[in-house]
């Protein structure tokens, strides 16, 4: 497939999957597809890898719907989602246990781009301009493809550990990326050829976020030590005050660009209004073991969703005061996105 160079690049590390059922809303309208919510489900309680079909994979909920429906692979351990979009061209990705899946035709068909060499794919990051350049984070390091996913090269020079949970592209410099690894957060400025540790000070990078309005403002959720913040591009780091010393799997900058949310293991959902330096508990439900995903509506910062471990998705429409479960009970929800 030919490389696509985006004129107006829009890369959202978001969404989905599905071999068979296409996006019915889009098809039915015959024009611009209406947005839907998509959820990446990693695990369903009681499901054993290799067992029967369960309730994993990619789920969709139309704006007018009240339920989530599986649209791709009900036994696919799904870690993350990604989207490359330029004009009317979209490429949708799923980072999953089987590898990196992509659909170029609105989720009608899918293709696994990787093979056994990359093993499981935990996250995907996309060059915002050149659709042929793809990065993935895996248990055995960062891999890069520059030929549209046909071939993959391991890119680990400078890294001291090989487990990489999360890779993101620096939105202010498409040659630069951040990789959240077992021991530290790493940065490259040459598309993965060389990596430099940013010395966060604690190990176990679980979430990596770059503020959408300030490229030097970085936040990481860690596996044992709460959230760490840098406002100088990773030169120095501060501990997010007020947070418990536990795992934080999700960090999200609200669409108001001022509020930051974080959630993790047995700790509920936290909120910061000072760039992540201090935090207060926003909501906690004893039923919820862990928060894996936080979604804030791009047009309405009061409309939020939280993906949990085993309790599905909770929604609030008042900025987090009142929450209700909106489905996928039993599911571990790794990512929630709104997507055309």
């Amino acid at each position, binding site marked *: 497939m030919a490389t696509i160079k985006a004129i107006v690049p829009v890369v959202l590390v978001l969404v989905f999957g599905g071999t068979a059922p296409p996006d019915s809303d889009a098809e039915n309208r015959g024009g611009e597809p209406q947005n839907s919510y998509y959820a990446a489900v990693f695990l369903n309680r009681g499901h054993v890898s290799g067992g029967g079909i369960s309730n994993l*994979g990619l789920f969709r909920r139309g704006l007018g719907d009240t339920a989530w429906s599986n649209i791709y692979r009900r036994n696919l351990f799904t870690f993350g989602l990604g989207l490359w979009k330029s004009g009317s061209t979209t490429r949708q990705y799923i980072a999953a246990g089987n590898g990196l899946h992509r659909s170029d035709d609105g989720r009608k068909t899918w293709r696994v781009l990787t093979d056994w060499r990359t093993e499981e794919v935990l996250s995907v990051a996309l060059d915002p301009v050149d659709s042929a350049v793809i990065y993935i984070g895996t248990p055995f390091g960062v891999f890069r493809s520059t030929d549209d996913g046909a071939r993959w090269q391991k890119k680990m020079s400078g890294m001291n550990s090989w487990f990489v949970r999360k890779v993101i592209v620096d939105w202010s410099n498409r040659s630069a990326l951040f990789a959240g690894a077992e021991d530290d957060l790493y940065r490259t400025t040459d598309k993965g050829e060389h990596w430099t540790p940013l010395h966060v000070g604690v190990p176990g990078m679980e979430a990596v976020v770059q503020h959408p309005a300030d490229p030097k403002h970085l936040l990481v959720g860690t596996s044992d030590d709460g959230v760490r913040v840098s406002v100088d591009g990773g030169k120095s780091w501060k501990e997010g005050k007020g947070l418990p010393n536990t795992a934080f799997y999700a960090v999200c900058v609200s669409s108001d660009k001022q509020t930051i949310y974080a959630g993790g293991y047995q700790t509920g959902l936290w909120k910061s209004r000072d760039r992540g330096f201090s935090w207060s508990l926003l909501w906690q439900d004893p039923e919820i073991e862990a928060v894996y995903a936080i979604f804030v509506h791009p047009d309405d910062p009061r409309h939020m969703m939280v993906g949990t471990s085993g309790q599905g998705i909770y929604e609030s429409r008042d900025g987090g005061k009142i929450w209700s479960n909106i489905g996928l009970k039993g599911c571990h929800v790794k990512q929630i996105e709104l997507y055309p």
Partner: protein
Amino acid sequence: MGALGALRTSKVIRFSLCVLALTCLSARSLPAQDGSSPAAQFEQRRQRLLDVVSQERDRGFFTVTAKFITGRDTEWAMAMLDSLTTDESIGGMFYSYTAIGTYLRLKDQLPDSIKRKIRRAFRERTMYRGDTENHWVMYYTGLYLAAQTWPNEDRSQWFNGKSSTENFKEAEAWLNRWMNITSTIGQGEFDSPTYFIVFMTPMLTLDEYAKDPVMKRKTQMMVDLLFADYAVDHLGGNYSGGHARDYPEDIINPLSAPAALWAWLYFGEPKSELWGETRYHPRYRGGWETAFGAASSYRLPEIIYRIATDRSKPYIHTETKRVRNIIRFGLEKNPPVYKYMYMTRSYALGSLHGGILQPIQQHTWDVTYISEKSNNTIFTLHPFYSGKELAMFFPEEQKFLSDEVNRYHLVYTDPNKWNSSSPYEQTFQHKNTIIVLYNIDKDAKQSHVDGFFPKTLDERIEHNSGWVFCRAGSVYVAFFPLKPYEWIEEKVNWRWRSSVVKNGVVTEVGSSDEDGSFEEFQRRIAKSKPAFNDFDKTLTVHYQTRGGDKMKFTFGGDRTLNGKTVDFRTYKFFNGPFIQSERGSGIVKMTYENQVRELDFKKVTIKEWRQSKQ
């Protein structure tokens, strides 16, 4: 000719050259059959098994296969096949290789409608690859055979959006890689009485239906290797010694393990038909996989049969295996595992060197003995668990891994569990003696050591010397706990428990062959006691075996035998009277009396010859 066809042609040429280089190619079957030959007896057991399985109505491809082969109940079998190929709720790697294996075996008997459904399954279902070594063996075996069966089809015809050629190449590359690793540095999920079946069954399927002669030959060699690996640890149907992973029911009752039925079929032991033996509570997890073995044209080379069953002389056998892929909290992806086995005709004492070698289900050591009774084993363990241990091997978030694993491996966090790896457990074995030391961290979730002693023992005596003496028929076990302990009565066993974190046990095993009477065994043992002065500081035990060998073992330190340090780095891939292989060589040499069978995985050749007696 498509790319796939061209690929095969080139391999045919290469294989032809390879064949020319052979001094002797093995036959695929045991020697000439007469009524009492191992080959003839195998044929009888094979037919018997197919007959038994064909009378079952378990859901799955194995019973279907047995029914078609025997011609019994084929109407039901066809309905089952229709259901299996229609039901969208099943899929994954277990389905993948069994579906294509059934298709290939029965294709002349199946209606087109069923064939189309199986083909459609590979187009529309997710044949999920899974996350363990056995998952991948099943997945890539299924993918290889499916891509071979339906070549030259484009991406739209496959569940993963890859063409036949792409799928074939990927599967072929991974299978070759796995075979190369397994034949040079070992399996990750090694010597498992349960998981043996999910390596053997796909390998037998691949051996049967791979068209590429090189792959076919290599697979046959892998089947030989898996059986040989089992054979040296085999005692009367029991898969003895340390295992990478197994379920607690099988660890405490070895003949209940699925591998025991394979031993019955291929090794002829135990003599009794296990499915009728309620005392062993046999489990057929996955359902009668042995039917695929019974249906296969593979025949066990006689030399492996002899290795599995000749226990006329005690032997020491050592091996190296590898740790399953470590993805974090480690410095090496696949560190070596060192195995030791002392085998006699009545018991086997076997061990892994200790530490975390596999997550969740490790079984580090045991003495397993021949018995007419169930629960014929004794061992100890530290019931360790931690999210970090799991996170070494699984990519999920470590905080919730313990709970999640506990949901399906129901005993993972159970303080009374009978399977566990532990970073706080190490072993030192010499012949029929083993020292097991524990140095449990103060922050470990469990701070006790447990031992399994079956109620089926004929005697269990606490001697005033500090030894605990046990007898099971003609097998004797002497067990010396270094620290205070208690006995807890349970349904099928006495649980020996010691709640001291710096701890250890010394075990010597004997038999009437070696020691005469039980009383004589006790007398010989009681003359010597482990020396462990200042153990809490030194973590060191000195012990002189009843055979006169002096063992010294320090937790985290040296193991010395008669003053000489035991260096695991000198361990070979296989080293014993029956199998020899240098680590990394890819050459596995089996020897029995004057028969030799050599598998060369790098040249993909099998040689057999008879050597002159020394």
